[in-house]
C-alpha cells in the first residue's frame, strides 16, 4: 500500500481491509455502496446454512478511497479498515 504523501494535494487510494468471515452474512450491502467496486460476493464452498451461503471479499483494496460507506452500512460490524471500524 502506498502511503499518502503529506502536503500532496491529491489523495492516494489504498487501504488494508479485513472482513470477519464469522460475522459476514453475505447481505451484499458493502458491494452495493462501494463506489470503487472493492468488494465481491463469493459462495462459501460446502456451506449448508442458507443464511451463510455467500460472503464478501475485498478483491481490490488498493482502490479504496476511504469513504467509509462500507463501515457505516455493515449491520454486522464485519469490516475493518486499517484495523478500525
Amino acid at each position, binding site marked *: 500500500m502506498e502511503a499518502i504523501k503529506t502536503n500532496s494535494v491529491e489523495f492516494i487510494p489504498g487501504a488494508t481491509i479485513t472482513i470477519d468471515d464469522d460475522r459476514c452474512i453475505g447481505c451484499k450491502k458493502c458491494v452495493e455502496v462501494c463506489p470503487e467496486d472493492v468488494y465481491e460476493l463469493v459462495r462459501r464452498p460446502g456451506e449448508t446454512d442458507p443464511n451463510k451461503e455467500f460472503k464478501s471479499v475485498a478483491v481490490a483494496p488498493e482502490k479504496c*478511497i476511504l469513504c*467509509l460507506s462500507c*463501515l457505516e452500512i455493515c449491520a454486522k460490524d464485519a469490516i475493518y479498515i486499517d484495523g478500525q471500524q
Partner: protein
Amino acid sequence: MTDQIVKKLELKYEPVGIYLIPAEHAERYEKFFENFAKPNGRLTYCQAVDTVRGAANYSKLPERPDVLVLKAKDFLCSAGAANLGFYNLPEPIKNGERDFLLRRFPSIETSKVTREMIPHFEAGSTSSVVVFKLSKAPVDPHVVLVFGNPAQILSLEGPYVMKTGGRLEIDVLGTCGVCAEMTVSPLLNRKMNLSTLCGGARSHAFKDPTEMGAGIPGIEFPELVENLLARQNIPKRQDLTKELQ
C-alpha cells in the same frame, strides 16, 4: 477556564482544542509539536477528538494520549482530511456518487450540490492538525469543540450574544459534523457553530446519541466562558436604580 466551563455546564468530558498547521512554513510549526504523540495507525478525525477527550482510545498507542498530531497519512476518513485542507476530495465523493450509492439522495446532482456546500479549506493548505484535551493545551487553539446534551449546548447560546445581542445562524446538515461543521465552519465564518454530529462520527466514535456539539473560534472562547459565568452577576431588578426598574 476549562475547569470553569466543565463545572458550570456539568460536562462529562472536557472541551477539545484544535490547532491547524498550514502547509506554508509547516516545518517551522511542526518542529514545535515534534515531541507530541502521533497515532500508530489511521483513525478518523472524530476518533482522534474522542480519544484526546478521554472517551476511548483509537490511537493504537498503548496509553491514551491527551494530545495527538495528525498528518494526511493518519486519516482513515478521506472526507474529513479533505475538509480540513489536507488534499482534494476523492472523485466519487466529490461528484456525488458516494452519497447517492448510500441512498441519501434521489439523484447524483442533489448529492453533488450538497457535497460542494460542505465547509472546507483549500486542498493542500493544511499540513498537520493538533487535537488536544483543552486542559493540556500546548498552544492556544484555533477552535474549541464542546460536546454535551442539547440542554448543555443551549447554555452556550445566550452567553455567546450576551454583550452584543443578536441571534446565531447555524450552518448544519448532519454531514461531516465534527470536521466541517464544528471545526472548519467556525473558522471560515468566524463564529460559533452548532452540530448534531453526523452518521460517520456516531458510527466510528461518538457512541452517546444524546451528545451534540458546538465549535467556537478559539479567539472567542475566553469571552464566552466569561459571559457564561458573568450571567449570574447581571443585576436583579430590585438592584437596579429606580429609573431603570
